[in-house]
Protein backbone atom coordinates (compact mmCIF):
# COMPACT_ATOMS: atom_id res chain seq x y z
CA UNK A 1 0.00 0.00 0.00
CA UNK A 2 1.54 3.25 -1.10
CA UNK A 3 1.22 6.32 1.02
CA UNK A 4 0.98 9.64 -0.75
CA UNK A 5 2.89 12.26 1.18
CA UNK A 6 0.90 15.31 2.14
CA UNK A 7 2.39 18.35 0.49
CA UNK A 8 1.09 21.76 1.38
CA UNK A 9 -0.13 23.48 -1.75
CA UNK A 10 -0.57 27.20 -1.10
CA UNK A 11 -2.64 27.58 -4.26
CA UNK A 12 -5.04 24.93 -3.02
CA UNK A 13 -5.35 26.69 0.32
CA UNK A 14 -6.11 29.95 -1.49
CA UNK A 15 -8.64 28.26 -3.74
CA UNK A 16 -10.46 26.58 -0.87
CA UNK A 17 -10.70 29.80 1.08
CA UNK A 18 -11.74 31.73 -2.01
CA UNK A 19 -14.48 29.22 -2.69
CA UNK A 20 -16.13 30.14 0.61
CA UNK A 21 -15.94 33.85 -0.14
CA UNK A 22 -12.52 34.87 1.20
CA UNK A 23 -11.58 37.73 -1.10
CA UNK A 24 -8.04 38.07 0.23
CA UNK A 25 -7.40 34.45 -0.67
CA UNK A 26 -8.95 35.02 -4.08
CA UNK A 27 -6.66 37.98 -4.72
CA UNK A 28 -3.63 35.98 -3.59
CA UNK A 29 -4.63 33.11 -5.86
CA UNK A 30 -5.12 35.26 -8.94
CA UNK A 31 -1.95 37.26 -8.30
CA UNK A 32 0.02 34.05 -7.99
CA UNK A 33 -1.31 32.20 -10.98
CA UNK A 34 -2.32 34.75 -13.58
CA UNK A 35 1.21 35.96 -14.55
CA UNK A 36 2.21 32.36 -15.26
CA UNK A 37 -0.89 31.73 -17.32
CA UNK A 38 -0.52 35.01 -19.17
CA UNK A 39 3.12 34.22 -20.01
CA UNK A 40 2.23 30.86 -21.51
CA UNK A 41 -0.74 32.25 -23.42
CA UNK A 42 1.20 35.20 -24.79
CA UNK A 43 4.18 33.10 -25.87
CA UNK A 44 1.85 30.73 -27.67
CA UNK A 45 -0.59 33.23 -29.16
CA UNK A 46 1.72 36.26 -29.59
CA UNK A 47 -1.25 38.52 -28.98
CA UNK A 48 -1.95 40.35 -25.70
CA UNK A 49 -5.69 40.65 -26.23
CA UNK A 50 -6.13 36.97 -27.03
CA UNK A 51 -3.86 36.01 -24.14
CA UNK A 52 -6.01 38.09 -21.77
CA UNK A 53 -9.16 36.39 -23.03
CA UNK A 54 -7.87 32.88 -22.43
CA UNK A 55 -6.51 33.78 -18.99
CA UNK A 56 -9.89 35.25 -18.02
CA UNK A 57 -11.65 32.13 -19.22
CA UNK A 58 -9.24 29.87 -17.34
CA UNK A 59 -9.73 31.83 -14.11
CA UNK A 60 -13.49 31.71 -14.57
CA UNK A 61 -13.37 27.95 -14.95
CA UNK A 62 -11.12 27.71 -11.91
CA UNK A 63 -13.67 29.64 -9.86
CA UNK A 64 -16.50 27.42 -11.06
CA UNK A 65 -14.63 24.24 -10.20
CA UNK A 66 -13.36 25.54 -6.85
CA UNK A 67 -16.19 24.22 -4.62
CA UNK A 68 -15.76 20.72 -6.06
CA UNK A 69 -11.98 20.67 -6.17
CA UNK A 70 -10.65 17.51 -4.57
CA UNK A 71 -7.10 17.72 -3.28
CA UNK A 72 -4.84 14.98 -4.53
CA UNK A 73 -6.18 14.78 -8.06
CA UNK A 74 -3.92 17.36 -9.64
CA UNK A 75 -2.06 20.49 -8.75
CA UNK A 76 -4.02 23.62 -9.46
CA UNK A 77 -1.21 24.99 -11.60
CA UNK A 78 -1.14 21.82 -13.70
CA UNK A 79 -4.88 21.94 -14.16
CA UNK A 80 -4.80 25.62 -15.10
CA UNK A 81 -1.93 25.12 -17.53
CA UNK A 82 -3.84 22.32 -19.15
CA UNK A 83 -6.98 24.41 -19.52
CA UNK A 84 -5.11 27.37 -20.94
CA UNK A 85 -3.16 25.18 -23.33
CA UNK A 86 -6.37 23.76 -24.73
CA UNK A 87 -7.96 27.21 -24.95
CA UNK A 88 -4.90 28.46 -26.83
CA UNK A 89 -5.07 25.47 -29.18
CA UNK A 90 -8.72 26.27 -29.83
CA UNK A 91 -7.91 29.90 -30.63
CA UNK A 92 -5.06 28.94 -32.92
CA UNK A 93 -7.24 26.41 -34.72
CA UNK A 94 -10.01 28.98 -35.07
CA UNK A 95 -7.59 31.43 -36.67
CA UNK A 96 -5.94 28.78 -38.82
CA UNK A 97 -2.67 29.29 -36.94
CA UNK A 98 -2.41 25.88 -35.33
CA UNK A 99 0.60 24.05 -36.75
CA UNK A 100 0.39 20.32 -36.30
CA UNK A 101 3.58 18.35 -35.98
CA UNK A 102 3.71 15.29 -38.17
CA UNK A 103 5.54 12.25 -36.94
CA UNK A 104 7.91 12.20 -39.90
CA UNK A 105 9.08 15.51 -38.55
CA UNK A 106 9.78 17.12 -41.87
CA UNK A 107 10.62 20.67 -41.02
CA UNK A 108 9.41 23.54 -43.11
CA UNK A 109 9.28 27.24 -42.55
CA UNK A 110 5.73 27.74 -41.37
CA UNK A 111 5.61 31.47 -41.08
CA UNK A 112 5.89 34.15 -43.71
CA UNK A 113 7.35 36.54 -41.21
CA UNK A 114 10.33 34.28 -40.63
CA UNK A 115 12.30 35.84 -43.44
CA UNK A 116 15.74 37.39 -43.28
CA UNK A 117 14.22 40.78 -44.16
CA UNK A 118 11.90 40.65 -41.20
CA UNK A 119 14.70 39.38 -39.09
CA UNK A 120 17.15 42.17 -39.88
CA UNK A 121 14.53 44.86 -39.34
CA UNK A 122 14.33 44.02 -35.66
CA UNK A 123 16.59 43.38 -32.80
CA UNK A 124 18.85 40.59 -33.91
CA UNK A 125 18.90 38.07 -31.11
CA UNK A 126 15.44 38.67 -29.70
CA UNK A 127 13.71 38.33 -33.00
CA UNK A 128 15.83 35.40 -34.05
CA UNK A 129 14.56 33.47 -31.09
CA UNK A 130 10.98 34.65 -31.46
CA UNK A 131 10.85 33.92 -35.15
CA UNK A 132 12.44 30.53 -34.65
CA UNK A 133 9.85 29.64 -32.03
CA UNK A 134 7.10 30.86 -34.35
CA UNK A 135 8.13 28.30 -36.93
CA UNK A 136 7.74 25.38 -34.57
CA UNK A 137 4.66 23.17 -34.63
CA UNK A 138 2.31 24.22 -31.83
CA UNK A 139 2.81 21.27 -29.47
CA UNK A 140 6.60 21.41 -29.86
CA UNK A 141 6.46 25.09 -29.08
CA UNK A 142 4.33 24.47 -26.01
CA UNK A 143 6.73 21.78 -24.80
CA UNK A 144 9.59 24.30 -25.14
CA UNK A 145 7.56 26.95 -23.29
CA UNK A 146 6.72 24.69 -20.35
CA UNK A 147 10.19 23.17 -20.09
CA UNK A 148 12.46 26.13 -20.75
CA UNK A 149 10.37 29.17 -19.89
CA UNK A 150 8.20 27.84 -17.07
CA UNK A 151 10.81 25.36 -15.80
CA UNK A 152 8.37 22.48 -15.44
CA UNK A 153 9.53 18.89 -15.40
CA UNK A 154 8.81 16.49 -18.23
CA UNK A 155 6.35 14.73 -15.94
CA UNK A 156 4.45 17.96 -15.27
CA UNK A 157 4.48 18.89 -18.95
CA UNK A 158 3.19 15.43 -19.80
CA UNK A 159 0.33 15.85 -17.34
CA UNK A 160 -0.54 19.21 -18.84
CA UNK A 161 -0.48 18.00 -22.42
CA UNK A 162 -2.19 14.74 -21.48
CA UNK A 163 0.58 12.59 -22.85
CA UNK A 164 3.51 10.50 -21.66
CA UNK A 165 6.91 11.66 -20.48
CA UNK A 166 8.45 9.90 -23.48
CA UNK A 167 6.19 11.85 -25.81
CA UNK A 168 7.28 15.11 -24.18
CA UNK A 169 10.93 14.17 -24.56
CA UNK A 170 10.27 13.34 -28.20
CA UNK A 171 8.53 16.70 -28.72
CA UNK A 172 11.48 18.52 -27.15
CA UNK A 173 13.99 16.58 -29.20
CA UNK A 174 12.20 17.40 -32.44
CA UNK A 175 11.78 21.02 -31.38
CA UNK A 176 15.51 21.38 -30.79
CA UNK A 177 16.32 19.77 -34.10
CA UNK A 178 13.88 22.06 -35.88
CA UNK A 179 15.37 25.14 -34.21
CA UNK A 180 18.84 24.11 -35.27
CA UNK A 181 17.70 23.48 -38.84
CA UNK A 182 15.92 26.81 -38.89
CA UNK A 183 19.09 28.68 -38.07
CA UNK A 184 21.09 26.65 -40.54
CA UNK A 185 18.63 27.58 -43.27
CA UNK A 186 18.58 31.21 -42.26
CA UNK A 187 22.38 31.35 -42.05
CA UNK A 188 22.02 33.86 -39.29
CA UNK A 189 25.23 33.19 -37.51
CA UNK A 190 23.64 32.50 -34.16
CA UNK A 191 24.22 28.79 -34.39
CA UNK A 192 27.24 29.05 -32.17
CA UNK A 193 24.99 30.31 -29.40
CA UNK A 194 22.41 27.68 -30.06
CA UNK A 195 22.66 23.97 -29.74
CA UNK A 196 25.62 22.84 -31.72
CA UNK A 197 25.62 19.40 -30.29
CA UNK A 198 23.52 16.69 -31.83
CA UNK A 199 19.93 16.63 -30.58
CA UNK A 200 18.95 13.76 -28.32
Amino acid at each position, binding site marked *: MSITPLIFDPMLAHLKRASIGDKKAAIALVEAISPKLFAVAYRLLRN*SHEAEEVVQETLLRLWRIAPNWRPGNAKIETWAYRVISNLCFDKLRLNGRFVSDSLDDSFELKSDIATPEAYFERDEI*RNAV*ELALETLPTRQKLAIIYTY*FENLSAKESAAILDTSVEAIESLLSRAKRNLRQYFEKQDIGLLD*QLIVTEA*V
Partner: protein
Amino acid sequence: MTNEDAKLREFLKGAGDLPPCPTGKFVNSFLAEMDNSQTQNKVKPNFSGFMRMAAAFALVAIGIGAWYFNDNNAPNNARSIALASINAPESVSEDLVSETLIYGDKTEDAFAASLVGSDDISTLVSISDP
Protein backbone atom coordinates in the same frame (compact mmCIF):
# COMPACT_ATOMS: atom_id res chain seq x y z
CA MET B 1 20.47 19.45 -16.97
CA THR B 2 22.60 18.66 -20.00
CA ASN B 3 24.97 21.10 -21.60
CA GLU B 4 22.63 21.30 -24.55
CA ASP B 5 19.70 22.17 -22.33
CA ALA B 6 21.72 24.84 -20.58
CA LYS B 7 22.68 26.38 -23.91
CA LEU B 8 19.14 26.28 -25.18
CA ARG B 9 17.84 27.80 -21.98
CA GLU B 10 20.40 30.57 -22.22
CA PHE B 11 19.53 31.13 -25.84
CA LEU B 12 15.82 31.30 -25.17
CA LYS B 13 16.39 34.03 -22.66
CA GLY B 14 16.92 36.16 -25.70
CA ALA B 15 13.26 35.88 -26.54
CA GLY B 16 11.41 39.16 -26.36
CA ASP B 17 10.10 40.42 -23.08
CA LEU B 18 6.52 39.73 -22.28
CA PRO B 19 4.04 42.58 -22.14
CA PRO B 20 3.04 43.45 -18.57
CA CYS B 21 0.49 41.02 -17.17
CA PRO B 22 -2.80 42.80 -16.43
CA THR B 23 -3.05 41.10 -13.04
CA GLY B 24 -5.24 43.84 -11.58
CA LYS B 25 -7.74 43.32 -14.35
CA PHE B 26 -7.78 39.58 -13.71
CA VAL B 27 -8.23 40.15 -9.98
CA ASN B 28 -11.15 42.52 -10.54
CA SER B 29 -12.84 40.09 -12.91
CA PHE B 30 -12.37 37.23 -10.48
CA LEU B 31 -13.80 39.24 -7.58
CA ALA B 32 -16.72 40.34 -9.74
CA GLU B 33 -17.43 36.71 -10.54
CA MET B 34 -17.28 35.88 -6.83
CA ASP B 35 -19.74 38.67 -6.03
CA ASN B 36 -22.00 37.54 -8.82
CA SER B 37 -22.00 33.96 -7.56
CA GLN B 38 -22.64 35.06 -3.99
CA THR B 39 -25.55 37.22 -5.11
CA GLN B 40 -27.04 34.25 -6.90
CA ASN B 41 -26.54 32.13 -3.80
CA LYS B 42 -28.39 34.73 -1.74
CA VAL B 43 -31.28 34.65 -4.18
CA LYS B 44 -31.39 30.89 -4.10
CA PRO B 45 -32.71 30.55 -0.50
CA ASN B 46 -35.65 32.85 -1.30
CA PHE B 47 -36.36 30.79 -4.36
CA SER B 48 -36.09 27.63 -2.32
CA GLY B 49 -38.49 29.09 0.25
CA PHE B 50 -40.94 29.91 -2.49
CA MET B 51 -40.56 26.42 -3.88
CA ARG B 52 -41.16 24.93 -0.43
CA MET B 53 -44.34 26.98 -0.04
CA ALA B 54 -45.53 25.94 -3.48
CA ALA B 55 -44.78 22.30 -2.72
CA ALA B 56 -46.69 22.54 0.58
CA PHE B 57 -49.63 24.19 -1.17
CA ALA B 58 -49.61 21.49 -3.83
CA LEU B 59 -49.60 18.78 -1.15
CA VAL B 60 -52.53 20.40 0.62
CA ALA B 61 -54.43 20.65 -2.68
CA ILE B 62 -53.70 17.03 -3.46
CA GLY B 63 -54.84 16.05 0.04
CA ILE B 64 -58.11 17.94 -0.33
CA GLY B 65 -58.66 16.44 -3.74
CA ALA B 66 -58.00 12.94 -2.48
CA TRP B 67 -60.37 13.43 0.46
CA TYR B 68 -63.11 14.76 -1.82
CA PHE B 69 -62.60 11.92 -4.28
CA ASN B 70 -62.78 9.31 -1.55
CA ASP B 71 -65.84 10.99 -0.06
CA ASN B 72 -67.75 10.71 -3.32
CA ASN B 73 -66.71 7.16 -4.00
CA ALA B 74 -67.00 5.59 -0.58
CA PRO B 75 -69.54 2.70 -0.69
CA ASN B 76 -71.49 3.32 2.53
CA ASN B 77 -71.59 7.03 3.07
CA ALA B 78 -74.80 9.01 3.30
CA ARG B 79 -74.28 10.92 0.08
CA SER B 80 -73.93 7.79 -1.98
CA ILE B 81 -77.01 6.20 -0.43
CA ALA B 82 -79.06 9.27 -1.18
CA LEU B 83 -77.87 9.40 -4.77
CA ALA B 84 -78.54 5.71 -5.20
CA SER B 85 -82.09 6.11 -3.98
CA ILE B 86 -82.72 8.87 -6.50
CA ASN B 87 -81.19 7.18 -9.44
CA ALA B 88 -82.22 3.57 -8.85
CA PRO B 89 -85.26 2.27 -10.88
CA GLU B 90 -88.41 1.78 -8.84
CA SER B 91 -89.02 -1.84 -7.96
CA VAL B 92 -92.57 -3.21 -7.46
CA SER B 93 -93.32 -6.31 -5.45
CA GLU B 94 -95.32 -9.20 -6.95
CA ASP B 95 -98.15 -8.88 -4.39
CA LEU B 96 -98.71 -5.29 -5.32
CA VAL B 97 -98.83 -6.21 -8.98
CA SER B 98 -101.43 -8.94 -8.52
CA GLU B 99 -103.61 -6.76 -6.30
CA THR B 100 -103.56 -3.99 -8.82
CA LEU B 101 -104.49 -6.32 -11.63
CA ILE B 102 -107.42 -7.76 -9.62
CA TYR B 103 -108.60 -4.30 -8.76
CA GLY B 104 -108.30 -3.35 -12.37
CA ASP B 105 -110.40 -6.33 -13.43
CA LYS B 106 -113.07 -5.42 -10.92
CA THR B 107 -113.10 -1.82 -11.96
CA GLU B 108 -113.42 -2.77 -15.61
CA ASP B 109 -116.39 -5.01 -14.92
CA ALA B 110 -118.26 -2.34 -13.00
CA PHE B 111 -117.58 0.23 -15.63
CA ALA B 112 -118.68 -2.12 -18.40
CA ALA B 113 -121.80 -2.90 -16.52
CA SER B 114 -122.63 0.76 -16.07
CA LEU B 115 -122.37 1.31 -19.80
CA VAL B 116 -123.99 -1.78 -21.21
CA GLY B 117 -126.09 -3.01 -18.40
CA SER B 118 -126.84 -6.58 -17.98
CA ASP B 119 -128.45 -7.00 -21.39
CA ASP B 120 -126.49 -8.05 -24.38
CA ILE B 121 -126.79 -5.27 -26.88
CA SER B 122 -126.27 -7.60 -29.75
CA THR B 123 -129.68 -9.16 -29.08
CA LEU B 124 -131.47 -5.84 -29.35
CA VAL B 125 -130.05 -4.65 -32.61
CA SER B 126 -130.09 -6.91 -35.56
CA ILE B 127 -126.77 -6.94 -37.28
CA SER B 128 -128.22 -7.92 -40.53
CA ASP B 129 -130.78 -5.10 -40.61
CA PRO B 130 -130.13 -2.95 -43.71
